């Protein structure tokens, strides 16, 4: 989808065109679903949360100013919802045993599926705030400044949490090796 097509679809969706909104959903569903999946490591919950993010978007379409703002808004909402959902789950069930979380089916094009699965498990073991930053940094390839803006936290906090998160993952990897 070109930028012009995105802008046209967004304008039409704001006017109430359902098919234009569906087009926006199809354009961004992979990003939103992947953030939720990498955060929650539960495909069904990730889909539910991604759907709710788009429902929320539908109710707030008039606030979206441009296709870039739409991407920013979706990343922000889905990440905050993931953090909230993750905290709710922890409160409901106590600490989640990592081995109890089902691993999503192996993906195509992975060079080392075992290593990837292990890494995803380790990412899921990070505290919510660090996990959100790691997912946005390495799934969405966002720089710390963009992450700070998306999560509405200071840049130095992003950097320190990212550093701590990577340190944790590195130590885990070394132990696993």
């Amino acid at each position, binding site marked *: 989808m070109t930028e012009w097509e995105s802008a046209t679809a967004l304008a039409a969706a704001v006017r109430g065109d359902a098919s234009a909104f*569906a087009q926006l959903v199809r354009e961004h*569903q*992979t990003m939103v679903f*992947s953030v939720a*999946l*990498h955060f929650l490591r539960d495909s069904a919950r990730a889909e539910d949360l991604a*759907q709710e993010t*788009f429902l929320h978007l539908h109710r707030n379409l008039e606030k979206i100013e441009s296709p870039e703002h739409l991407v920013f808004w979706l990343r922000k909402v889905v990440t905050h919802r993931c953090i909230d959902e993750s905290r709710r789950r922890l409160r409901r069930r106590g600490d989640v045993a990592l081995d109890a979380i089902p691993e999503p089916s192996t993906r195509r094009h992975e060079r080392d599926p075992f290593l990837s*699965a292990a*890494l995803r498990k380790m990412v899921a073991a990070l505290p919510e705030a660090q996990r959100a930053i790691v997912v946005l940094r390495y799934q969405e390839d966002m720089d710390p400044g963009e992450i700070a803006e998306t999560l509405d936290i200071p840049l130095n906090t992003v950097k320190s949490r990212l550093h701590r998160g990577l340190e944790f993952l590195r130590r885990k990897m070394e132990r696993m090796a």
Partner: protein
Amino acid sequence: MSLLEDQLRESLRRQEAPDGFAGRVMERIRRGDAADQAQARAVARPMPAWRGAWFRFAVLAACALLVVTVGVFQVRREREEHRRMDAERAFEALQLTAGKLHSVRARIVNVGLARKAEDE
């Protein structure tokens, strides 16, 4: 650290949303819109006055005011009655006293007249 970062990029690559995802979102939006419209209709229908909290409060306040008014009226009437009875009792006592004083005066006059007649 860069090897770890490469591995993270590899592991956290975007994954396709399940088939039919957009359709399910649109279905939920349609259902949500219908529910919203039903809710809007429910909100638009004016609520009967007697179901309003203010109306109930006003009724309660009116009842309380009525009870207080009747109570005050009753207390005043009883006080008035007591005062009237006290006045009647006092009047009767005064009448009795006046009668007795009158008879005492009559006796004194009689005794005086009798002594005067004896002296003469």
